[in-house]
């Protein structure tokens, strides 16, 4: 072993970069191999039409863990200041909310929302504590597991009796029940429903959509921001931090397989046949891809294989990018508000109805949408005076019946533009180029099985102690030397860095023991 590494990280997604940087900071010799030509995984900014660039997947930053930012000393240049959400109304009666304040609704809803946000923020804080460390294993008598479980119990109890009961009642139920109970305004209900189900294969009436809502709030109570230069600039900064700590990052090096010798990991082999040796391989790829393809089932046991194979991870969120000649005229929207987050979710039923076809492999004829104009805050993303629109559109099931043919893409893009046309009638005339990234495209471009943001549905049966699967929730896979550090591991997806950071801490702790 002449050029052996202490650890090889497969994939330079944001979690892989965080993990490698923290490992290197602790003195490890780390190599990161990235399949694509650029670092960042799905967190990149890329041009989709001549001179028009957007963040390819996630376009807003709200989940980055403060600890990640601090430990890596990220400066994080943001485009513009605070951002609000505007729930679009066809009759210009938009509802706007940010933090615990909401406007455009009756006074009773203003009070209810403040109360709701306060309570959710408290619950999210509780959750967040436990998102930032490896979850305990269940059923062991190991001290650290028991201590962590006790801590979880204690944190719950510390909420107070009533709050604890409310938390336990809410954590498994759906957002629909809660918003209809609390709010009168349909736009507010719709927008909060959308917040809860964004990026998932869930509708507002699906179980545990309060949990997904809390997950969204965990790191920053839902405060939104956009990095200057799109998400790619964050990835670049992470890569810089990693390189600064001594990490070797090599792009355009797709890993073909993780080498297993004598029942343990021994390194990786790239598509070009190059081999790199290390007794520790940390995979930023999703669990299915890692185990079923990179490792191969023959090197792990059957029960584990079955669990990995059964992880639900069929993406249902698409990305729509529009190059715009000029900003379309959204009725009732102030000029400054084009830099905010606009959502199309007129009420909670609309969101649920949009989800219905997805259950049967059809895309939504009337999609729900999260719309941003990144070029408003960051003009460099579009040619002078022109604009880009970046939308997350749901639902666009991975396994579309009949497949994502050109006709199916065209139809869904049309459905999205027509839906927005109800709020901005001149939109269509502004569009000069479009790009639709369906989950199938996301899978192909970013090597995420099923094109699911979270590398595995965010649901209680795939969360905490059982993420990615029961018995392997602590980043360490049941194959000596193999670890996960991506969104498929605890706690899940979103640009948070928690999985990468937790994995690094776990590996360092285990290897120092």
């Amino acid at each position, binding site marked *: 072993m002449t050029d052996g590494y202490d650890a090889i990280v497969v994939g330079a997604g944001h979690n892989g970069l965080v993990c490698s940087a923290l490992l290197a900071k602790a003195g490890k010799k780390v190599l990161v191999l990235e399949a694509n030509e650029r670092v960042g995984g799905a967190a990149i900014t890329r041009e989709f039409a001549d001179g028009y660039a957007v963040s390819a997947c996630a376009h807003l930053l709200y989940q980055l863990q403060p600890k990640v930012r601090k430990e890596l000393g990220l400066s994080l240049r943001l485009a513009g200041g605070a951002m609000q959400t505007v729930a679009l109304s066809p009759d210009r009666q938009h509802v706007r909310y940010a933090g615990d304040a909401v406007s455009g609704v009756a006074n009773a809803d203003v009070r209810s929302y403040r109360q709701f946000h306060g309570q959710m923020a408290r619950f999210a804080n509780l959750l967040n504590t436990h998102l930032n460390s490896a979850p305990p294993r269940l059923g062991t008598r190991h001290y650290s597991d028991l201590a962590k479980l006790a801590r979880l119990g204690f944190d719950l109890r510390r909420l107070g009796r009533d709050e604890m009961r409310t938390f336990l009642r809410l954590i498994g139920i759906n957002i629909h029940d809660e918003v209809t109970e609390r709010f009168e305004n349909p736009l507010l209900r719709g927008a909060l429903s959308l917040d809860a189900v964004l990026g998932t294969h869930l509708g507002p009436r699906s179980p545990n959509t309060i949990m997904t809502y809390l997950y969204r709030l965990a790191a920053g109570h839902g405060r939104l921001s956009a990095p200057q230069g799109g998400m790619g600039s964050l990835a670049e900064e992470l890569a810089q931090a990693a390189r600064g700590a001594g990490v070797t990052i090599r792009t355009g090096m797709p890993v073909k397989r993780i080498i*297993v010798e*004598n*029942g*343990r990991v021994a390194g990786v082999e790239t598509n070009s046949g190059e081999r790199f040796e290390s007794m520790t391989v940390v995979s930023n790829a999703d669990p299915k891809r890692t185990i*079923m393809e990179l490792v*191969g*089932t*023959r*090197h*792990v*046991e*059957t*029960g*584990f*294989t*079955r669990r990995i*194979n059964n992880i639900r991870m069929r993406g249902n969120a698409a990305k729509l990018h529009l190059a715009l000649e000029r900003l379309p005229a959204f009725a009732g929207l102030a000029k400054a508000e084009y830099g905010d987050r606009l959502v199309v979710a007129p009420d909670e039923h609309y969101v649920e109805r949009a989800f219905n076809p997805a259950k049967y492999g059809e895309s939504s004829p009337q999609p729900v949408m999260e719309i941003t104009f990144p070029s408003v805050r960051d003009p460099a993303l579009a040619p002078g005076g022109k604009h880009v629109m970046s939308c997350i559109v749901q639902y666009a099931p991975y396994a579309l019946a009949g497949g994502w043919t050109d006709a199916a893409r065209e139809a869904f893009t049309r459905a999205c533009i027509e839906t927005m046309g109800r709020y901005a009638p001149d939109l269509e005339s502004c569009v000069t180029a479009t790009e639709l990234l369906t989950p199938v495209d996301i899978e192909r471009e970013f090597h995420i099985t099923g094109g699911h943001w979270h590398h595995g549905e965010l649901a209680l049966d795939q969360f905490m102690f059982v993420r990615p699967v029961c*018995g392997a929730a602590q980043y360490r896979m*049941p194959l000596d030397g193999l670890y996960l550090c991506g969104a498929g591991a605890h706690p899940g997806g979103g640009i948070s860095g928690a999985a990468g950071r937790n994995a690094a801490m776990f590996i360092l702790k285990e290897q120092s023991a």
Partner: protein
Amino acid sequence: MSAREVPQGRLHTPFYPRMVALDRLNAWHTWKGYTVPDALYCADTEYFAIRNSTGVFDLTPMTKYRIAGPDALVYIDRLVTRDMTKIRPGRVAYAVWCNDAGQVIDDGTIFHLQDGEYRLCSQERHCAWLMDAALGLDVTITDETADVAALAVQGPTSFAILKRMGIEGLGELKPFGLMHVEFEGCALMISRTGFTGDLGYELWMDPESAGQIWDRLFAAGEISGIRAIGTDALELARIEAGYIMAYIDFLPAHATVRTGRTRSPLELGLDWLVDFKKPNFNGRRALAEENRSGSSWRLVKLDIEGNKPANHAYIFADAKGRRNIGFVTSAAWSPVCKQNIALGTVRMPHGAPGSQLWVEIFYQREMHWSRVMARAEVVDKPFWFPTRRGLTPPELV
């Protein structure tokens, strides 16, 4: 697994008409959906046929899976705990397979039919587990239970009968060997295997030729005391041989709900089947850990004083019955060994071979119950292991 029509209701094996013709007791039960006899005329006589002449047992209901494809060896080797790379074509291996927790799902025999093609035989059905084990491997799994009729021909005269029947080359077949022959135009596979612990063979054939082969077998065996037997006789023979049985001596892991009710191969005395030199197999990590930290249970063979079978008895460490350490799972008076024998499960570290335990036996005489505390010695070897079982060629008797 190929889709096909599944027969409904209780099934008959191809040998059923032949057994009905011999049947005097009308005592039948189901075994995996098939009608099979407890005994046909007298369980004792049938048992003595196994030990003194030849007993013929219909094992068609035995679950049979065909495992084939380029990855068949990788598949099998990962599935079971023993090293399957050592099992060459034409050989049969007794094996046990575990879940990831190292707990036994079932045991059975694996026939290496030809290069890259195996047949796995077991008492239980394992379709779901076998399919899951095939994920990511180039291998096909086919349930061929109904496509293969099988007879166990077991006893000291079995070799002579099969030879008289006209099977060539049987003399060279070693224990756990298999051979393919053509018999009167029918393809026949013969393996030197069985569940009786005696000299014996198993015949595997197309259901179409089942009747013909049965008739020729019984014609050839008439002067050697051939008898069709039921499961009662076999049950006694397998206890004498010290063979364990699913649902009796251990519970298949997939059929178990309560924690601590499953068993690892180390706890069933099958450590000789677990090869830790293999880098990966199902249950390896858990079994390696158990090997380090120690097992909870031990399967024991007991030689018990007296003649009252110790069915369902508790096992104690002391004569006064103060320290309950386990229970008997199978028990019988062994006519051939003249011993009161049992298989049981005891907590570690009890039950080392040679140690003495106590068994609490309840028995009933004319309605009234009595109880004895019987001394039991833990023995290492099977109760019944005749020399003829291992002889190649076997004696012509």
